[in-house]
């Protein structure tokens, strides 16, 4: 089982989700097994204005633990992250970063998603 710990910059209480990555997808938006996929399936709202199609930055999360265990970012995601407000070296798009193995991941959901150019 993988473990995803979710912290919220807005002060909402943290959530811990345990799941089996091999059973992805868990719902219909974002890549199968992505952070977005897991969060939405567990009733946790994460913005995804483009429907999880890697065309905006509203699902931006900061990966506090397990960054290197996630699927590698592709060029489209890197180009979008380049424009994300509050970008950090451990930023990912929730719709693209896939939890592939039984690992422990901690993500921080930023307070606001502002996606104007």
């Amino acid at each position, binding site marked *: 089982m993988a473990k995803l710990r979710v912290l919220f910059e807005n002060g909402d209480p943290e959530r811990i989700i345990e799941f089996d990555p091999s059973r992805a997808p868990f719902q*219909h938006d974002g890549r199968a097994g992505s952070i977005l996929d897991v969060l939405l399936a567990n009733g946790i709202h994460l913005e995804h*204005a*483009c429907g999880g199609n890697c065309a905006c930055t509203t699902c931006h999360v900061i990966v506090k633990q397990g960054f290197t265990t996630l699927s590698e970012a592709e*060029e489209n995601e890197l*180009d979008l992250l380049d*424009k994300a407000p509050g970008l950090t070296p451990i930023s990912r798009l929730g719709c693209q970063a896939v939890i592939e193995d039984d690992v422990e991941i901690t993500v921080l959901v930023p*307070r606001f998603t502002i996606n104007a150019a």
Partner: protein
Amino acid sequence: MSVTSTYVGTITRILERAPETRSFFLRLPPDQAFRFTPGQFISCPLPIGGESMIRPYSLASSPGEAELEICLNRVPGGHGTAYLFGLDVGATLRFTGPWGTFTLDQAPATECVFIADGTGIAPIRPMLRRALSGPGTHPVRLHYAAPSRAHLLYADELDAAARAHAHFTFYPLLNAPLAEEIKRRYVQEDQDRSRRFFICGVGDIVPQLRDLLRRAAYERRAVQYEKW
């Protein structure tokens, strides 16, 4: 959490622009203004199958117009387009936005090449209009690929723009390989790498063009794209 408001637009017109391709014109209540930058999209939470499914639609209209226009083709098996194609004039559509960073706020001070594949013309249209609204000192080009003349959206308008602006050239590409055309013209024909590109389309053609241009020594940020 989002800082974006939700809007409710009323469909005032539906226009069949090409086979299985429609424009929906949305009007907001008079007290509501919707500001966006050419190239951006709106995000529609559509009530499908008892739940809310988010679908993004590029704005094909320009900022300041009385109505917002989205233009889309029916996707086989697509829940979002099936829902929208079932709506009539007078129906309402909830949306948030504007979203997206594939934008053009003012004409670049260099040659500007737009590349659209199919309905990828939707966000390009207001970007092109904005590019042509400047003094026109640099060439502006549009390569627009479609299966046939009937599928070429806004064709008359684009032809008219080409007649009206000496520095604008419109290259419709009907049922021909887009990547080969772009490679020949912008990779093989000269060594000028100062151009800026704006590419939009559906599927693999978009990253294919991106990689083609970036590997040919165009600067990464000079090649902007949106892949649907």
